[in-house]
């Protein structure tokens, strides 16, 4: 599970690390991904696992569009820059939730019959739920892929360069807006991937984004803003902490462990574990 958190978080971290913008609507991106998976399944009977790439691609476009239409302007603000970003994306989150409620109704949905749903594998005597396992696998693959992308490809390096100095890159022929739009798209796609998989074993409803969103922010902050690896590591830590807490404390307090760990880490290292901001 931690790895899935990592996946969600990585998408967030990417966007943040790239442009110093925290996307408070990230949870809602997840929600959309889940709904998309659901509808693809409901109307076309495509198994979520197969439709995952499709969902990711759709989210990619969505993310890029959001950047171009909205975020780009938010970043131009000179006064209160931080607040503007926070509230713009937050407003977006609320609008998305409202739209979801309006169009999809607040009912809970779920995908009952999936290629993976409800099955378990036994590895070395421990029963593990298949969907989560696949999710974890996908996360790792996605992360590795992302790592190579950023560090080995030209485009990946363009992203890094744009992060370091958005003004200067124009001189080298890099279009800042294209890079950012891509970044957003990528971040959204990653969370889309997570959403598609999670749709298999979580209930889907308009507010579902909110509960995961906070964990995602904590994960990114824990790992340190600006570090993709940090987000991944954060995800793993969060997943573990959550599991341990669930054993020790009553279920409703499950998140307290995560929060406490965040506060502790950030007290000791105000920039998170690997943060560069």
């Amino acid at each position, binding site marked *: 599970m931690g790895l899935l958190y990592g996946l969600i978080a990585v998408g967030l971290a990417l966007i*943040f690390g790239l442009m110093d913008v*925290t996307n408070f609507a990230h949870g809602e991106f997840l929600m959309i991904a889940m709904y998309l998976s659901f509808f693809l399944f409901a109307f076309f009977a495509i198994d979520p696992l197969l439709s995952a790439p499709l969902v990711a691609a759709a989210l990619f476009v969505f993310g890029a569009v959001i950047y171009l239409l*909205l975020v780009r*302007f*938010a970043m131009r*603000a*000179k*006064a*209160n*820059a*931080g*607040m*503007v970003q*926070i*509230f*713009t994306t*937050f*407003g*977006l*989150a*609320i*609008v*998305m*939730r*409202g*739209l*979801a*409620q*309006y*169009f999809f*109704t*607040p009912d809970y949905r779920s995908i009952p019959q999936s290629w993976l749903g409800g099955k378990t594998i036994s590895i070395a005597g421990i029963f593990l739920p298949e969907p989560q396992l696949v999710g974890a696998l996908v996360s790792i693959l996605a992360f590795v892929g992302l790592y190579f992308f950023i560090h080995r490809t030209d485009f990946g390096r363009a992203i890094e360069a744009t992060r370091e100095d958005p003004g200067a890159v124009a001189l080298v022929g890099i279009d800042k807006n294209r890079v950012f739009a891509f970044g957003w798209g990528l971040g959204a796609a990653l969370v889309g991937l997570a959403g598609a998989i999670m749709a298999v074993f979580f209930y889907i409803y*308009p507010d579902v984004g909110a509960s995961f969103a*906070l964990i995602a*922010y*904590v994960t990114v*902050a824990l790992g340190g*803003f600006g570090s993709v690896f940090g987000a991944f590591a954060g995800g793993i830590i969060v997943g573990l902490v959550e599991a341990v807490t669930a054993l020790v404390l*009553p279920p*409703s*307090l499950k*998140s*307290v462990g995560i*929060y*406490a760990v*965040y*506060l502790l880490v*950030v*007290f000791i290292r*105000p*920039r*998170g574990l690997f943060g560069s*901001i």
Partner: protein
Amino acid sequence: MDKDFAARRRRDLIIAAVLAAIAALTPLFVKDVVVQNILILTLMYAGLSQSWNILSGYCGQISLGHALYFGLGAYTTELLFTKFGVLPWFGMLAGGAVSALIAMGLGYPFFRLRGHYFVIATIVIAEIGLLLFHNWEWAGAAMGITIPIRGDSWLKFQFLRTKLPYFYFALALCCLAWFVTWWLENSKWGFWWRAVKDNPEAAESLGVDVFNSKMGAAAVSAFLVAVGGSFYAQFVSYIDPESVMGFQFSLLMALPAVLGGIGTLWGPVLGAAILIPLTELTRFKFGGSGRGVDLIVYGTLIVLISLALPRGLLSLFSRPKKTGAAR
């Protein structure tokens, strides 16, 4: 120049007095309970947002976890009342004190955080508070506390037959928050806060005690918000963790300030005057299955304001002098 400044200060005070007087007279004309309700909530949120503004607007430490203090105020008051028979008037002060102390206690380890890390920490702390209360048997856990109401009583600050006292209390609270802000704005603290917000390093070089400034802002802010929470508890007569410590309160305290003009004297009041009635009305009209509509309106408004007017609506009215030709 000083005369201009003093005149401006007096003008603000006079406007406030006039507005307060008008507000105080409205119950004579407005008898509709629903509208009264909206007015009471508007005043309360104006007061809350104004208080939030002290820490987050003036001092620049954006907190999205103020619901914690709201809830603490509510719970302290009601626990003292239902378990020990302490009158809510004293309970309110106790709630305020508790919140202020906790705000300072939290400040100690966490004021060193910058920007996003700090905001998330505030959210997380409020969530922890909520979860703790959710599991605290003595405080009612998830069932919450119901305040027993036996008829109208000023002593116990509960009223069944009329909402008027609540209205006046909310008005008083709003005025208090506004006045405190007005007073502190032109005080050493106000200047220190703004310096800390703009450039803590420079502030330090000018002898500003950055840490204590933040503590002071946090304490004042938390105290006022807690009193608001106590009020709310008495107003709705029932509290449980979600209904007084939920994230939505943290948001509702911040949004009016952002809308109206964060870090300004009138911003939160203006923002609340617009946002709260809008929220309540849309919820009222579109309540039910189409519930998302109020969120859509709400969210869109926030997005538009953030993009178009990062300094809030108030910036439409003030035109700062660009080229300073001397008077």
